[in-house]
């Protein structure tokens, strides 16, 4: 029977899970606008995600700026276009590389954290305990985390981009004797609103994807502690794939308008 093939089962399972994820997202939007609003927990989650990711995002951004500039320099020198370095680096980082790399880092840091935390709360009956105490756990745990990820991802990406440009400026200063002022003058001359807006808007969707998949996997975690590890791992894998899909759609749409 064709229906017994593993391929068929995998495809069916994929669409079932996608349907469940869509329903989970629908519930998020329904609960988002209905009181009570959990501002206290939202602020706590924003702090947790933002503050605790700053160092990781900063270090990643800095190394990204250093490496990208070091790798690009010889080629640009070869073509006599080294003066274009600040423009090229800033547009590449702000438009594409910065948001994608930092979102991937956050998928590992924030997405897996949410998956593990909610998964562990599920298997130790903490989510049931919340429900029994008359609290809507979806609103308290899921809505606040997804919203916090939506709000904090753009902040982290802007911060990461800025640090990456500092890293790039340091290399240019050392290798090319370009002053920081000149470097950043060229950066701001090269960047336009059409570079900044689409790049920033897509980071909200990146945040939504990270929060949604992490919460979905953790909240529906099963099969004890093994399930927690699975939830955490799946949160990172699925989010990473989703980030590239969102990025492709965002670039495609931005290309139509700009």
């Amino acid at each position, binding site marked *: 029977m064709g229906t017994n093939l593993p391929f068929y089962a995998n495809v069916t399972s994929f669409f079932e899970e996608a349907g469940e994820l869509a329903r989970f997202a629908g519930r998020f939007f329904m609960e988002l606008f209905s009181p009570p609003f959990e501002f206290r927990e939202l602020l706590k989650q924003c702090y947790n995600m933002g503050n605790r990711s700053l160092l990781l995002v900063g270090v990643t951004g800095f190394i990204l700026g250093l490496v990208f500039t070091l790798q690009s320099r010889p080629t640009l020198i070869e073509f006599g276009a080294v003066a274009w370095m600040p423009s090229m680096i800033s547009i590449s980082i702000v438009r594409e590389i910065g948001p994608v790399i930092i979102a991937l880092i956050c998928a590992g840091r924030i997405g897996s954290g949410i998956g593990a935390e909610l998964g*562990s*709360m599920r298997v130790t*009956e903490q989510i049931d305990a919340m*429900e*029994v105490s*008359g*609290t*809507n756990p979806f609103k308290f745990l899921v809505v606040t985390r997804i919203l916090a990820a939506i709000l904090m991802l753009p902040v982290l990406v802007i911060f990461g981009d800025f640090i990456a440009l500092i890293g790039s400026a340091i290399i240019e200063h050392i290798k090319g004797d370009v002053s920081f002022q000149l470097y950043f003058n060229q950066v701001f001359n090269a960047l336009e609103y059409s570079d900044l807006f689409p790049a920033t808007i897509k980071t909200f969707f990146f945040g939504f994807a990270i929060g949604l998949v992490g919460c979905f996997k953790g909240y529906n975690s099963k099969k004890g502690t093994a399930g927690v590890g699975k939830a955490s791992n799946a949160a990172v894998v699925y989010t990473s794939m989703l980030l590239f899909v969102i990025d492709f759609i965002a670039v495609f749409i931005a290309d139509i308008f700009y």
Partner: protein
Amino acid sequence: MEKPVPAPDKKIVLQIKDVYKAFGDLKVLNGFNLVLYEGENLVLMGKSGSGKSVMIKCLVGLMEPDRGSIEVLGNDISKLARHEMDELRTEIGFLFQGSALYDSMTVGENLEFPLRRHTKKFDLKNADGLVHEALENVGLPKTVDLMPAELSGGMQRRIALARALILQPKIILYDEPTTGLDPITSKEIIELMKTIQKKYNTSSLIITHDVDCARVISNRMILLLDGINYAEGTFEELSTSDDPKVQAFFKN
């Protein structure tokens, strides 16, 4: 040993009528019935996987039965809206088998959590007092700033009991309150349950495998077997029963 509560004189606080619950082909509850009277300690015993925890989760709306009705304090829970169910849940304390303390919060925050959700019923200005009283009740007044991971299993169970009590519920549901504890700590928890029942006149439904716990605390017992209430009576009646299936529960 305490005398059984004379059932007919008491008000019914919880009633399960003809409840069925299945997971696929596995029939867990198969027409189960139960009545809990005001101020009574009712012990429910059954084999592992016999559906005790499923039944107790149906009582608080964590699971829905396939058929049958559940009335808590006169409310048919299948007909309640979400906010009405949340209000009703303030009248039900639930002690989970694994304590289920929120491990990202301190003991104090764990106890405050239900209070913060029900500000209509409780004034948050008194939150500190209520937390302190609940911790005094379980004999752990100095743990307010500790994290659950810093507590022993027995202490965690006590704190979970304090959290279940903090909303001053009329009914407390205990899901295997002594499982995983050493005999001395088990006795302490059982004594605590008795003290609380006397102090607040709560009605308690206790799920347990622990025969000692059942002997000390029960006014009445139900044996859950094959999805039905197979036998009912006092501890003495059931422990001296001739039925081999009933006897199996009381043999060491």
